């Protein structure tokens, strides 16, 4: 198993290299010049050129790339062009909100959709099934920010039950932390409900038709025990797969949610950095996201080995 893990980790290096190259050159070819943005609204052309030179942005691109690679090898992701703060500091400042949001969304999504999927599988092809699945897809069909605004309008503005925006670190207390995350997690989680519910339903159906389930039924075990114990465990593999895919999709959704709810997380940091052409920050962030994705994939592959004895490495 250890050998497998090590082998997989090595295999990620070329992937990361592709990502790094792609992102670096993509940014450099983009129009829009961080120097001009920094220099401000009334700066003259000469002032902008001077800023560019000082930032090293007028060196040949290949040279800039190697400088960056060298920095990375020393664990230094560079500094933001705008704030002069280390990229690692910017990322670590914003890690907690994004991780908190992602985990709570995952929790909401899974907690809602697995029971829905199981219910739909149990009453397959009946009205309940259709309704429940339709409802789940509706959550997926609406753009995330529309739902977010609707939720804010009712729960925060009209009924004043929850805060409109912001994020409180868990160090400030458990309830403030939770109450700020409720609306965003629901707004984002509902989007993934459909995906997870659908796969749960499909794989449950498949498992339920298997011979050994029919045997268990014939033996007289109660229906719900049968479902939960045997079926769910065997249906776990595709469900975990889709949760893994969901985590990747979550990052995209997190960007929107962080913007609407004003959560100072990595998603917003990336969008701001891209729009302001803050190259070092964007490069560093994309590497971090790629690494996270790769890590998640690895964890999922390992959990397969535990869940399904047929899969062995």
């Amino acid at each position, binding site marked *: 198993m250890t050998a497998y893990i090590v082998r997989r980790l090595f295999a990620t290096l070329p992937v990361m290299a592709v990502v790094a190259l792609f992102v670096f050159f993509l940014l450099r070819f983009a129009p829009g010049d961080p120097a001009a*943005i*920094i220099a401000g*609204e009334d700066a003259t052309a000469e002032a902008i050129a*001077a800023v560019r030179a000082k930032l090293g942005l007028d060196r040949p691109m290949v040279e800039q790339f190697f400088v960056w690679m060298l920095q990375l090898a020393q664990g230094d992701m560079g500094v933001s062009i705008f704030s002069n703060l280390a990229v*690692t500091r910017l990322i*670590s400042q914003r*890690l907690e909100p994004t991780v908190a949001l992602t985990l709570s969304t995952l929790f909401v999504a899974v907690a809602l959709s697995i029971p829905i999927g199981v219910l739909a599988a149990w009453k397959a092809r009946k009205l309940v099934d259709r309704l429940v699945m339709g409802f789940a897809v509706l959550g997926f069909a609406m753009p995330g920010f529309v739902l977010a605004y609707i939720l804010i309008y009712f729960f925060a503005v009209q009924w004043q039950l929850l805060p409109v925006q912001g994020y409180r670190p868990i160090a400030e207390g458990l309830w403030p932390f939770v109450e700020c995350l409720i609306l965003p997690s629901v707004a984002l989680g509902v989007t993934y409900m459909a995906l997870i519910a659908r796969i749960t339903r499909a794989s449950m159906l498949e498992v339920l038709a298997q011979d050994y389930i029919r045997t268990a039924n014939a033996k007289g075990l109660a229906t719900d025990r049968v479902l939960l114990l045997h079926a769910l465990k065997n249906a776990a593999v595709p469900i975990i797969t889709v949760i893994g895919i969901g985590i990747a999709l979550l990052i995209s959704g997190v960007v929107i949610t962080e913007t609407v*709810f004003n959560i100072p997380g990595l998603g917003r940091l990336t969008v701001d950095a891209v729009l302001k052409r803050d190259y070092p920050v964007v490069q560093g962030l994309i590497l971090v996201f790629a690494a996270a994705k790769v890590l998640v994939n690895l964890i999922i592959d390992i959990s397969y080995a535990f869940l399904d004895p047929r899969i062995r490495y």
Partner: protein
Amino acid sequence: MLKHILAGAVALVVPFTAAQAQEKVLRAVMHADVRVIDPIWTTQTIASIHGMLIYDTLFGNDADLKPQPQMVGKYEISPDKLTYTFTLRDGLKFHDGSPVTTKDVIASLKRWGAKDGVGIRLFSYVTKLEAVDDKTFKMILKEPYGMVLESLGKSGSSVAIIMREQEALTDPQQQVKEAIGSGPFKFAKDLWVPGSKAIYLKNKDYVPRPGNEPPSSFAGSKIPGVDRIELVWISDPQTAMSALVNGEIDFYEAPNNDFLPILAKAKGVKLMMTGKIDSTQGMIRLNHLHPPFDNVKARQAMYHLINQEDFLRAIVGNPEFYRVCHGLLTCGGPYENTGGSALMKEYNPKKAAQLMKEAGYKGEPITVLFTTDHNTITPATQVLVQAMREAGLNVDAQSMDWGAVVSRRAKKEPPAQGGWNIFVTTTGGVGASNPVLHTWIGAACDKGLFGWPCDPEIEKLRNAFAFAQTDEERKKIATDLQTRAMEQVVYIPFGQWNTPLAFRADKIDGVVPNTGLAVLWGITKK
């Protein structure tokens, strides 16, 4: 790297576990987030707002735009108006405890004078800046420039802040590394999350101007009213408004115009119009370097396409908050005049098209830089493009975000090679009320601002203004200047508007209508 992560984690946890129940905190949402902390290095307005919290200035212009001493205790102007002697007040100290001396002041002024447009203009008349002792210094001019104090106290970016000598010696093309000033608040750099929030702590050792002078824009005694100011950035205007209504924030500098009715009705929220001439002026900037607008007749043709009401309605909506102003100097300001405004009185798109043709326009594409993400410039550009298209002009609207516009407008190449013909922007009403401070009315050819209008007559008039001795003289020069500038079409104004700021009157007090940049130091929390 690990060190950074740990430091970040600790920084997040520690201040919040400290007893902050008794702390008075002002939570303010400004029009942009604090990204760059060197107000001299950048002309961004938000950087100067940040700057005014943590730094102090020699003078500060009050609500009537008259300079009042701040750091300066007394000053003398020689009868020939060539020598200014300034003496600093007692007790001025930087946040690290070191005293403010003339060494720091002179180095800071030099840095400002090398980078800021108004400062550069002032320093072109300065022959010598020398310290007499630790508290007194002299500024010697070669000509009796009349705008010395106004420039030093100006309430628009970049403000003439005083830094420690070691920071002031930093090359003006580079950012300073530390944010240490002598102002009423200190910058908590460790707690700064760029793009999210910037934190300022009360400077208990700050010595405000004696006599408890009431605050008036940048003048008056600056007494820090709260223990802590948090400049929070909420990018979504609706979320910001809801946060104010819910009480999650106390002060909202620039609420979106359409939310004003909701805010007016919300419990505990008060709207306050800012100072008399504080406003925003819309500008359509034409590129004088390339056809068709290298021909003054083509530029003048464009006047007939602009119906200011259309623009103002699209941007602001409510007529209560805007006014039509057919001039370049701020309407309602001390130098408002009607010079040249006859050129804008006739809205007639057909005539515009015809005049363009007479000026030699044959239907070539006119490149308009179309900002997609700015809440006033975007609608203004849309109105402009539609007006041009309706007149039959061939518009090539290139959509890009504001960052890309800012880069592209600096290019002097022909439009087809990465340049431009038209872009739309705005400027602050306070700066635009004064011919010298209004940088966009200049016509210094290559050395000027984007669009590069070229007319020595305009520059001569601007200079003459600075040396005028009487107010009558100044008003006449302003009229001549505006007439000339309108004839040359340095830019086309599309209207003037001013929207109130919003705050929780049930939570804070002491909000001063600013004339120029927002003033936060006098605000107290109930």
